[in-house]
């Protein structure tokens, strides 16, 4: 339960925050989701990671589809020849790491500030 709650929160908050704030707001979204979604650090990290990866990877895949892979292919060449799919995976991983890291820190901070309570 807390896993999917954290995951969905990361995606929704990420979507809202990123429309107004720079890219690092995905970490902020993860932090809030991690703070309110769960008290388990591992669950927080995994759910934040997966949520942010889905958000970044999913949106990138949508844009990539409209573009028929044209730009991602070139950007993939620029980054050591990883190709369009490589760019999608890299995007999901980077988004995931920053979302997961945020969720971990958010959850952790809440446990430090309000120990014992769920």
């Amino acid at each position, binding site marked *: 339960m807390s896993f999917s709650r954290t995951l969905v929160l990361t995606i929704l908050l990420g979507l809202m925050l*990123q*429309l107004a704030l*720079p*890219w*690092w707001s*995905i*970490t902020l979204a993860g932090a809030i989701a991690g703070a309110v979604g769960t008290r388990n650090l591992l669950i927080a990290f995994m759910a934040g990671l997966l949520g942010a990866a889905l958000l*970044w990877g999913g*949106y*990138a895949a949508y*844009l*990539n589809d*409209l*573009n*028929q892979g*044209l*730009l*991602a292919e*070139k*950007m993939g*060449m*620029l980054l050591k020849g990883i190709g369009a799919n490589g*760019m999608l995976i*890299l*995007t999901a991983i*980077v*988004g995931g*790491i*920053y979302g997961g*890291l*945020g969720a*971990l*820190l958010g959850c*952790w*901070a809440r446990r*430090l500030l309000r120990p014992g309570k769920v």
Partner: protein
Amino acid sequence: MRYALFILTLVLAVALVIAAHRNHPFGSALPPLGKLLDPFGGFWQNAEPAKAPKSQVIDLPGIKEKVEVVFDERLVPHIFAANHYDACYAQGYITAKYRLWQMDFITRAAAGRLSEVVGEKTLERDRLQRRKGMTLAAERTLKAWSDNSEEMPFIEAYTAGVNDYIASLKPADYPLEFKLLDYAPEPWSPFKTALAAKSMAETLCFRNDDLQSTNVLRMLGDSLFNDLFPDYPPGQTPVIPADTPWPFNPVTPHQAAPAPPPYGDLIRFALPNPPPFIGSNNWAVAGKKTTTGHPILCNDPHLGLSLPSIWYEIQMNTSECNVYGVSFPGTPGILIGFNDYIAWGETNVSHDVLDWYTLTWVDEAKTAYLLDGKPRKVEYRIEEIKVKGRQAPLLDTIKFTAWGPVVYPDPASPYHDMAMHWLSVDMPENQDFHEVGVFHRLMCGHNYEDYYQALSGLSAPAQNFVFASSQGDIAMTVNGKFPIKADQQGRFLQPGDQSANGWQGFIPYEQIPRVKNPAQGYVASANQHSVAPSYPYYYNGAFDMYRGRLINRLLSENKKFSPGDMMAMQNNTYSIQAEEGLPALMSALDTGSLTPIQKDMWNDLRGWNFYFDKNKKAPAVFYRWLTRSYKDTFDEWYTSPDSNYLDYPDMWRFVALLKDSPTHILFDQAATGKREQARDIVTQAFKAISAELADVYHDNDFDWRSEKAVRIGHLAGIDAFSQLNVDIGGHSDAINAVKKSFGPSWRMVVSLGPEIKAWGVYPGGQSGNPGSPYYDSMVGQWAQGKYNELLFVKTPDALREHEQFRITFQ
């Protein structure tokens, strides 16, 4: 303890965020990864949908009346405006929408401001740009424009359009290169348009060989120098037909050229010249020689092949004129094009308008120099160069003399003792209009008289302006401000202590070389000599020997030309250099002991028709053989420690030596004990290239295409955004002058008459965004020699079948 671990993790997370936010974080080679990959703001936002966007209505406060811009299926904008001002406004907005980074990059490169965004590695380039006087030149040009010139309102409208577009951008919308280099677009200004104009001048008329020629003169002595570097090559067919009369009284130079400096040490300093591959073709054929019965005008300017392309195709329709052609991003108007009445195009003139003067310093600190017997203080100009990664900007002090800047920076160096006079840095004369106005007058021109008046505003870069009108006139003008020089003046370094050694005025506009409706029924130019030696003014420069002769040969045929013939001609890969050079090489070759591969090469060459076709091996062999023989002949140049500071003989002169003087002393190689002749050099070169090619010659994919490997490179040199190994033939001396990274940057054929029809193509695409399907959409077509029929329409409705979407400004 619990807190310590948490804070450590937090700090680590913040460091990771910073690392992913900055370009080259902590000195690494990485781009700002988080920022770049973020699908909401990073590069994914530049992945344009392949499908056409929806039409838009945009409110622009600066516009006077409503403007409709219809984009056709090739993304060419057709601007319909009530007045010329609004058309320029819309042009600025639209050009920025598709080419903003290119506009920024070109003007930064011209102004010496690349280091601001790139860092240390472009610093020396930036310094040199400023020391050449580029920023001063642009300031002076802007001052002249601002002084009530005709073009200033158009430049201001264009600027407002660009800036309205920039103001509409969120960081997520920035062009991709801004994101990769991690900087933001800054507002446009008329000063930037002046920089764009100076960047064109730098490409086209900065060429200077004074130091190189002086060195070669010192190395060879007068007689051999004159033999190798004649003023006018035999067999040349000049831009203005040789039989054109000069019915005027020329201004006589009052001062003979100063003697070239005495023989002595070589000068080990030369500025990087613009590449020698800049060239172009244009011609116009009168109705009596066309299948349509009306004139046909053609132009293909050969410039650097780049992505985004140097040209942006556009139609501008106003109540004053209806005109179509190509524009130069950063400059309002159309530079090569046609309207309902006339068509025009340009090739470069390449007269020498940059001269070097030696200075006689008065004091040890070099703060004053002698001029006409009196000491004169240098003026100082301080250039501030911002460098990414540095706290404080670099301040570079440049000395200016009456001649121009002292370009070399180190006062301790003997090469600090020269000043440069370049026409493009001079304060423009006070006139009603200047270089931008010239094109706006042509855009609205109706006839030869309008063309004649329009061209009077141009000073530099000088261009051969071809002209044709629906009334049936054709014309060619070698147009620009040309310094009056005594015979040989400006060819070598000159003493700068006498003001009389300067230019002796300018050739009056009425007397510059021009021809209208010549009896031959056509006019043509291809960067060759402007006029035959009968023209009463001296000029020198760097001129092409082959393309002009071929165009004249083809156009003088007794036949009627169709637009299709003209397109075929623009794509013609025949080379007179090969026609003359190959027999000279072959007859000098010792064929006594050829190996099997040498025999194959020989047979391929014997069967060759002198066309530089992409799938043949012979052009590759010929070109290697010719250049190798050239280098082995002029080994004195190549083996000199000063090889970078010498002028090299033209290829046609080498071919003539092979044919006419096979025992010339130049064929002797100093390093060997024996006395070589042409036969030895050519044979040795043939053996050398056969050894080079031994492993690849019989491969199926060894041919002229793979040998040349044409590259259309991204402006910032990013391979992933470039087109490599383009499938095309051609040669610098063929009409289809495709070189490794230079070539026909726009091919246009205009058939005039009651109904105007035109065709064109360029090696790029309308969008500057590497994520757009229109980034390089015309490259394949261009390589195949195919054309687009240009949609020259009178109303937006006429585009109904071709319209993708439209933008309405109100």
